[in-house]
């Protein structure tokens, strides 16, 4: 299986390449990609230089242009695709129908991958994107179980890429307006979820309150580690009980399932985290590189010991195990 690794900056791109990434993925420095955070992402010149660096070492580069173009301003997204193709990236990762069509028409030789933000969760949807736009690979939404992924791979003539490690959306990606409900900014329109400039923390006696926009997302006691208020990982009250209604502050880690994913026919594993620093990238990518090499050599993959890297320092195999639902 191919190891697809995040690169939020040129430094983390080089770290991923050196740690054994088969592919790095990145975005331009604007709202055309789903990690539109301050200080992150690539200028045109940076992408050109780093693509040359990666290619010289046999590593591929994918460009994520996976937000939904704004009505009246589609040209910004068109230009991003044009520039990525001109720079010579190995694939563009897209979600929007209009942008898929533009790219297929304008750059018929470009390799198109369907972003997880398109949330293609079933065989007919994937066939649609393949038939209409020649999509070669689908990044599967994190709502499918391992059995469902295996079923899909038996029925479609398209490569699949699944999330292997990092932050985990519990909602179908690209179909979630929770963030804009609370802050006015969303993954689809702005490339951000629960954006930092809408976050604030308050001290209340011994407790720390994390807030997103006007809403309290969590209240931490003195003995608890304070986390970032990602909306769907908050503690809320329903049916008279307080708790993590949607999901615990946990991260995805599929190291224990790698052989099963290979048997299920998965082509590529994606590590989440373009917002992460160099040290994190080196460690996580290195760990997955070793595990994949061990499996390729017919050995059992050694547990990654990455739990200290994960959000809330606990991890889950998410929807891949059906009891998650």
């Amino acid at each position, binding site marked *: 299986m191919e190891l697809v690794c995040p690169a939020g900056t040129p430094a983390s791109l080089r770290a991923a390449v050196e740690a054994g990434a088969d592919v790095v993925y990145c975005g331009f420095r604007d709202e055309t990609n789903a990690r539109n955070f301050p200080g992150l992402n690539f200028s045109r010149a940076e992408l050109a230089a780093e693509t040359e660096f990666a290619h010289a070492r046999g590593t591929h580069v994918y460009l994520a242009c996976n937000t*939904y*173009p*704004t*009505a*009246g301003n*589609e040209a910004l997204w068109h230009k991003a695709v044009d520039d990525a193709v001109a720079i010579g990236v190995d694939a563009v990762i897209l*979600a*929007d*129908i*209009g*942008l898929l*069509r533009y790219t297929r028409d304008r750059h018929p030789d470009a390799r198109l991958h369907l972003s997880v933000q*398109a949330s*293609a*969760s*079933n*065989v*007919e*949807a994937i066939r*649609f994107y393949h038939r209409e736009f020649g999509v070669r690979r689908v990044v599967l939404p994190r*709502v*499918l*179980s391992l059995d*469902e992924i295996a*079923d899909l791979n038996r029925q479609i003539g398209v490569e699949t890429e699944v999330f292997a490690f990092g932050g985990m959306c*519990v909602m*179908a990606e*690209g*179909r*979630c*307006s*929770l963030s*804009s*409900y*609370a*802050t*006015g900014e969303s993954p*689809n*329109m702005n490339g951000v979820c629960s954006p930092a400039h809408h976050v604030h923390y308050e001290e209340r006696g011994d407790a720390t*309150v994390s807030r997103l*926009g*006007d*809403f*309290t*997302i*969590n*209240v931490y006691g003195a003995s608890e580690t304070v986390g970032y208020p990602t909306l*769907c990982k908050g503690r*809320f*009250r*329903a*049916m008279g*009980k*307080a708790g993590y*209604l*949607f*999901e615990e502050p946990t991260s995805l880690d599929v190291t224990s399932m790698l052989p099963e994913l290979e048997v299920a026919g998965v082509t590529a594993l994606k590590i989440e985290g373009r917002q992460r620093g160099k040290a994190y990238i080196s460690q996580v990518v290195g760990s997955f590189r070793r595990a994949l090499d061990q499996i390729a050599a017919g050995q059992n993959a050694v547990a990654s010991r990455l739990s200290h890297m994960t959000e809330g320092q606990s991890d889950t195999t998410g929807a891949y195990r059906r*009891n*998650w*639902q």
Partner: protein
Amino acid sequence: MSMPVNTMPSSALSAPRLVMGPVLFHWQADYLRDFYARIADEADVDVVHVGEVVCAKRMPFFDRDWPDVIERLQRAGKQVVYSTLALVMGDREVGIIRDLAEMPDLLIEANDFSAIGVLAGRPHMVGPYVNIYNEGTLRYMIERGATRIALPWELPESSIANLCAAAPDVELEMQVFGRVPLAISARCYSARANGLHKDGCRYVCGDTPDGMNVDTLDGAPFLAVNGLQTLSGTYLELSAEMADLHRAGINLFRLSPHRCDMVAIATVYRQLLGGLIGPEEAHQAVLDIAGDVNLANGFLHAIPGAELYRIPGQAQPE
């Protein structure tokens, strides 16, 4: 095989029409039958949606009732639209979508790309769960056979104006009343809140027929859970914006069903469209009928969707 589809003449200037959206919640079959009977007989709406949008597990409870409900609505002069699942997973659910191609005589609202693929070439509607954010995507849908398109909830008015201008040849729809669907998941949060899993959910989503209220730890209302779906805690209410939306080119206005008196809600919006009452009066009337709820319109005004933007010069009641 030719597919007669009940479409109406389209024009940005055509008379505004009212739509009763699909029932998103797991209402008991008896209640649902009575609801549709009353909508057929009493509600002043032009279009009524049927079908299960949120969870395939609920379908067996009402599948055999749909033909009678559809016939009754059609006899009452309503255009009936069949809405499909928003999130389709697994072979059984894909099978449900494939069967749509054989469904005659009904306009079908496609709510995901499996349905759009299956309905290609046949006149159909594209639902608000499909991401249509720009002109290129809108034009693609029209070329593929979409005759009516309901726009996503989070769009600001500038996007809506651009989309309307780009598609004078299609009917465009927006929801103006009711909780806003914000997210859909493979995980059932009604089950989870009750200590259950989806596979053994005991249909606990049916216990909260307007959604399970989700409050912040400070006790502020925030969201509502409906099985796999997460909705806004507030009810969308766009009476102050409808005239502008209609001028821009929106010609269908959707009311999303709740357990409050939906016939009375339809009457309020009909009176507003007919100029019999003004937006302030309509807003207050909706509040009186919907009961103990907070109203919001923030998405349209490019502010947080949970907020209520007060249009300058319009004295909106609390």
